[in-house]
């Protein structure tokens, strides 16, 4: 027995074993259960076929949640990819030498929990004239705004929170990617008279693509499954007129707050489908599949 356990043939499976058990117990079984539950009305304990899914198709609040999540994802992609790439390129350039301090400061927001970060932003976007953002408006003579009551202003607050937390991390991602580009490419380009901007577009952007694809993938995932940021900013899952409701927020509302587990599982599976589809499109558009083949 002992000899069997110690043989070179069996050992790899022993090493892998904890992962296999985890996948089975904590991923495969829950996903299968989720699929089964999505065809049930759990409270009445009966099978309802595709009822949950057909209800989702006409559920206006779910549609709003879906739209909010997409809007948030798009906003974060537009802000958290080009600007960090630009900042990273500037930090990586020969015009600036001492970058350690900046890199450290930019990383600090990523250390905070969503509870702390969300609370700070909720109070900075307070309704009184003395909260930070209303004070800033006051400088320009604009009267105080109820930031977290309006759809547009609260979307701005959510995006700003995301930018605050993740700009620094994305700068570091891009910096790591840029540093793996051989410097002689830039030297050759400057000898040929290429400007800094041309070098950025023609060398940095294409060669840093693996990093961009990685950041894109995790941003799509995080954007579509955002929940806690909104939960903290609106002090709970019930925002006025559902302006802060996201897909996961709706899943939580149905599954935990209303105990409609079957319906919530259907929402969860739609989320999985959406994340998979958006990422497949992204990988197709960026051509990652073709490169992966060789």
């Amino acid at each position, binding site marked *: 027995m002992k000899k069997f356990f110690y043989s070179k043939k069996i050992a790899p499976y022993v*090493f*892998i074993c904890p992962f296999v058990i985890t996948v089975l117990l904590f991923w495969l079984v829950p*996903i299968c259960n*989720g699929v089964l*539950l999505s065809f049930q009305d759990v409270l009445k304990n009966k099978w309802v076929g595709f009822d949950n899914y057909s209800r989702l198709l006409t559920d206006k609040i779910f549609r709003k949640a879906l739209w909010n999540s997409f809007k948030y994802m798009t906003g974060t992609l537009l802000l958290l990819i080009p600007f960090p790439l630009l900042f990273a390129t500037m930090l990586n350039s020969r015009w*600036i030498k001492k970058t350690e301090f900046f890199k450290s400061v930019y990383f600090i927001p990523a250390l905070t929990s969503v509870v702390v970060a969300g609370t700070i932003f909720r109070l900075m976007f307070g309704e009184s004239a003395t909260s930070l953002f209303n004070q800033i408006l006051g400088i320009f003579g604009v009267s105080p705004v109820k930031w977290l009551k309006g759809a547009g202003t609260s979307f701005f607050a959510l995006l700003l929170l995301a930018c605050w937390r993740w700009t620094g991390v994305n700068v570091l991602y891009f910096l790591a990617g840029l540093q793996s580009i051989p410097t002689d490419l830039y030297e050759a380009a400057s000898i040929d008279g290429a400007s800094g901007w041309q070098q950025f577009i023609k060398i940095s952007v294409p060669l840093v693509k693996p990093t961009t694809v990685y950041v894109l993938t995790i941003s799509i995932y995080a954007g579509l499954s955002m929940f806690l940021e909104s939960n903290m900013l609106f002090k709970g899952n019930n925002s006025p007129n559902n302006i802060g409701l996201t897909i996961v927020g709706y899943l939580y509302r149905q599954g935990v707050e209303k105990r409609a587990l079957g319906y919530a*599982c259907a929402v969860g599976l739609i989320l999985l489908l959406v994340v998979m589809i958006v990422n497949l499109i992204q990988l197709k558009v960026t051509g990652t599949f073709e490169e992966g083949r060789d």
Partner: protein
Amino acid sequence: MSRSMKKSGITVVFYFIFTLLAAVIFLPIWVLFIASFKPGSDLLQYGLNLDLNVSRMNLDNYILLFSGQHEYWRWFFNSITLTVITVLGTLLISSFVGYGFAAYDFKGKKFLFILVLLILSIPLEVVMLPLYKQISSWRLLDSYTAIVLPFLAHASTIFFFRQYLLSIPRSLMEAGRIDGATEYGIFYRLIVPLMKPAFSAMAILNGMNAWNNYLWPLLVIRSSDKYPLTLGLNTLINPYGDNYSLLIVGSVFSVIPIFLLFVAFQKYFIEGMMAGAVKG
């Protein structure tokens, strides 16, 4: 304008932009910090701002934190306990699995490794509710086992260890075998000592995630004496009594342990976060 003047002009502009960005990023932290010296009722009334009205500032919140009647320190030590268990457990199990993937060729390896990558791309929120139901049927609710157990074989940590171990030559393991070491002995005696930097990076990353973890504990923990700090702080959001005073000073103190670790081990923080970014 001479060439060198133009060059130094760009340098000045760059330093200006990055200093401004640093100031903007640091601003919310600063605002939180000064608020910890203001009465909690001010916070509720005025929101967070840059006002430095020294006459209204005092150490009352800090006195409340260290000598008041509340559960803050219990939550704090719960979080420490949870973080230590998570880090030790995850490093032990995930490095074990990562070694299996890196050091051997075996039937089904490709399929299993694709599973690792697949799990990396599934949001936890998708399985959260069925997983909760399962944990509940095992009567594990309201325990730290429920928080930690499902994530010990942690996909991204396994991935990181595997990448790291691929750079260790297999001839080293062969040499171990010739010396008569068992397969497990090779891992623990020869390989683990070489993995120190990888362990440090993953300890920091998993530790930070465990310390800041919120959603899963929110689902599985019931009793407030078992709350980690994140859940505890969130209960203070109700504006009754001294809650806001404690919330703000408690938030400051919740960031301090991570911040000190960051100052001491910055390199590992960044390495841990960067895992997988360059190679995709």
